[in-house]
């Protein structure tokens, strides 16, 4: 009888121990995008002369990172009317039907469909970018920029870079004064869920 009690006690202790110190998850780590510490910047050439930069201030979404890149995924939503170029009238113009048409298309979104490892630190993330009501596949070069802890939660950072043609998304206005190619950087900080 004593042996049975000892065995049961040992089993309970073992189960309790497992519960308090779970083994590393076999699935990817999921992160919720921290919109305060995430950024999206875009660059476009003005009058064939200088590179002009703007940003979007409202970013949300989630991503998951895994040692096996194929199990990683990314999902980002950006509020179109958060575009900010440090000029009120230009921001209004960008929100108008001439460009982003924020009233009709309030969200820009990206959802990954395939992630694969490339040389070095980076991964290639293929996904569907929905911009201006048009969804097209794009490839973003993504690198992990760091990881750590903040306010008791694990955090991780990634940065994506991609180039799109705005005409592919039906944004054809001002073709003679603004470049067609737009370079985009999306930097995400996520807190582990």
């Amino acid at each position, binding site marked *: 009888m004593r042996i049975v009690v000892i065995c049961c006690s040992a089993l309970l202790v073992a189960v309790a121990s497992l519960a308090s110190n779970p083994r590393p998850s076999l699935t990817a780590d999921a992160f919720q995008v921290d919109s305060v510490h995430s950024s999206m910047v875009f660059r476009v050439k003005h009058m064939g002369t200088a590179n002009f930069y703007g940003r979007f201030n409202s970013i949300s979404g989630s991503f998951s990172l895994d040692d096996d890149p194929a199990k990683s995924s990314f999902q980002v939503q950006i509020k179109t009317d958060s575009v900010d170029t*440090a*000029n*009120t*009238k*230009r921001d*209004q*113009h960008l*929100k*108008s*039907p*001439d460009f982003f*048409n924020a*009233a*009709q298309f*309030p969200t820009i979104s990206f959802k990954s469909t395939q992630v694969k490892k490339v040389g070095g630190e980076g991964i290639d993330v293929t996904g569907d970018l929905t911009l*201006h*009501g*048009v969804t097209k596949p794009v490839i973003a070069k993504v690198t992990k920029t760091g990881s750590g802890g903040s306010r008791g939660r694990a955090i991780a950072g990634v940065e994506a870079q991609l180039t799109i043609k705005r005409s592919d998304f*039906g944004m*054809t*206005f*001002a*073709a*003679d*004064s603004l470049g067609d190619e737009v370079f985009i950087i999306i930097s995400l900080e996520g807190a582990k869920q």
Partner: protein
Amino acid sequence: MLTLRDIIFAVGLPAVWTGVVLLIAWRPWRVQGLPPSGFWSGPVALAGSFLWAFLGASGPPQFPPIQVTDWLPFIAVVAAVIGLADSTLEIPRGVKWATGCLCIALATWMLIRPLPAETHSQTTKLSWLAMRAIVWGGCWIAIERQAIKYTGSAIPRDLLIVTSATALVLVMSASKLLGLLAGSLAASLAVFVAVGYFTSLSMARGSVLVLLTLLSGLLICGLFYAFLSRPNALLLLLSVVLTALSRLGRLGHLQGWKRHSVQLAFAAIPAVIAVILAVTDFAASMSEGSGDYGY
């Protein structure tokens, strides 16, 4: 800032196109006394001018349209076809009024429909549709009846004032595209005024319908998708309404300078106030410290 391309496509080509079409149709050199037969030219000139401007500013429209403004060239074509039918066929009056109002209502719906349900419920959209169809349909019927009665340059002149003001206000309401499109209609109407001085040009049977359908569409796009303020939208609408009223009743019996003064004042006063408000707002936004933005 207007580029050379903007000037060519939104002003130059519309003016030349309208000039050629109107001269072919209304032939100032024709023998006096022959009945006018150029009604068809108005819808062709106005819709063609609009399409030139759209092509120059935005390229060929997508079909099916995704972006709201891509509906505008198709609306121009449909309005022109209805206008051409009116100008070439003897359509019963009731059918004509119903078809024209339906055209305005359909254009309004195509432009309001893409608004997301989160910001504009179906009830709100239907209310706007009903209101605009009644007001703009009413304006069209009133101006069309005047255009049947009065030929020459007076009606195009009043509509030129409204359309020019609309172009200026839309440019300053954060959409150069909408401003250029309204500008192409203004450029076309300027040629109507010039040709109207020398001929018995009439805007009846098609032209007024095309113009008001497009003008209404541009104001909808400005109000819902750009930054056209409600007071300015109302003032521009008031300018159209007063143009429609300026020849009704006792006003229609005025003669000489009194008649022209009243007609000009009715069209111009709300339009000029709208332009002043838009300029003031634009100047105020520049003085906020974010610098000059001239497109």
